[in-house]
């Protein structure tokens, strides 16, 4: 009984971990408030974070191994022509991705990497900002 009471009193007087949320609490200058230590800075990202995927269209050889191991079937192959030869390239649907990092490990050319970036909210699950490689796809895909 008194063990937890002691803890409650301790917590009552300790520094708050959260920042006040509604709009009216927003200070005029965030930087100034941060510098004075009145706002809690964001939690630092961990060392081994697996964040947003990055895809290098030019180094990809279209082997399709990433598509094979992807547990969420978030990777799609589409046909392209490189020079004279036919090849394949990928798009990654971030809304399906589970961030396990299998594709990063398997890629023989290190074309897929993971960025230290975690803010990926969007209004459309299949919008272009949540499909990695969609711009290159529109440019290069062979449509029959």
């Amino acid at each position, binding site marked *: 009984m008194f063990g937890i009471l002691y803890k409650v009193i301790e917590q009552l007087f300790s520094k708050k971990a959260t920042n006040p949320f509604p709009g009216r609490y927003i200070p005029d200058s965030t930087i100034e408030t941060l510098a004075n230590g009145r706002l809690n800075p964001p939690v630092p990202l*961990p060392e*081994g974070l697996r964040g947003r995927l990055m895809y290098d269209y030019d180094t990809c050889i279209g082997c399709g191994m990433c598509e094979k191991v992807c*547990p969420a079937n978030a990777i799609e192959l589409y046909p392209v022509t490189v020079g004279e030869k036919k090849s394949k390239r990928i798009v990654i649907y971030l809304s399906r991705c589970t961030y396990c990092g299998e594709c990063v490990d398997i890629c023989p050319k290190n074309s897929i990497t993971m960025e230290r970036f975690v803010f990926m909210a969007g209004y459309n699950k299949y919008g272009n900002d949540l499909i990695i490689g969609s711009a290159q796809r529109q440019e290069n895909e062979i449509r029959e």
Partner: protein
Amino acid sequence: MDKTITYPLQIGPTHPAFKEPVRFSFKVEGERVAGVDIDLGYTHRAIEVISKERNFIQTIYLLERICGICSVSHPMAYCMAVEDASGIEVPPRARYIRTIIGELERMHSHLLWAGVAAHEIGFDTLFLYTWNIREKVLDCLEQFTGNRVNYAMLTIGGVRRDLTDDLIPVIEQTLEYYLEVYQRTSEILLDDQSIRYRCEGTGILTYDQAVALCAVGPTARASGLAKDVRVDYPMLAYPDMDWLKPITPLDIGKEPAGDVYDRMVVRVLELKQSVDIIRFCLDNLPEGPIASINGSIKIINKLKKVQGEGIGRYEAPRGEVAHYDILDMSECPVQMKVKAPTYSNAFAWVPMLQGSEIADIPIVIASIDPCIACADRMTILRDDGATETLNAEYLHSLSVNKMKEVKSRCSG
């Protein structure tokens, strides 16, 4: 008027007292529970069927999502089952790293349970306190594996990421923190008067009932049944620890009564045991490779040529989890069977709830640390809302037919 009248009481499928959908039909006499019926099947996700369409690597990540709390126990048992079937060896370093992740997970799961139990008895201050100290081990897991849950650490034949030298001090600090707070936490959880009033003598599962109903994990150990897969079955780094033994309330000199309080005692003592196991693993961490086969495609190609069956057993925080896999010259498991700990423990609810008070129902149900989504194996959907009773003969014939089907699909 000496005739007692029983009233039906339905709780669930969705109810604030439960964390997951499950339905209980009680017969109550006044404040006492006279009859219990459990109705599962509201959160069935057909994971065993989905896994048949995915290759061995994809299945690991699917199985990680069977349970959000024991997200390393299911892939661990699965990997052991596939390794058992195919004869793939796990290097010693990988065994130790697997043990460390498993024990860190056990710590966070037990702290989570302590918070949930406190919440169920209306002690929300303690709930917030235990979840606050649980953050530390989640932060440690995040540093170590990159995620708070669903660590994506295991692969068939080893682990995916190494325990680097700069991570060892992080884990050491976490253990140090837990040893510091252990004294106060165990005092609050075990000596607090309000907890003792609510937990002592409620939800009793006797030794004989625990044996008869095949209870597993902390539920069985609280009834004095010294059974722990980590001790009974050689796996991971546990055979190297001669001092390891199942924890029962006898360790603090208490005769096991099998009530909710004893389950609390077992889980609190296991926190300390997990710290000791991780300390041992860090001190004796062997050098060497972390996986016997490098590259997921190589693993799939090797398993494509394997025919056989394997069993993997692991002590999840809630009890024994067992996976059975059949491999048959294919990229996907031909058949798999998951036995989650709640599957064994759910039957123990009946003697526990029999004769208890209505106010004790939430804490007794939470006391086995149920994970309904793990345990759901079947759901029956009918438009007309009629109930259907499946008897033992029908289920047996279903099982025989299923086995015939699997055998016909296996070559040879």
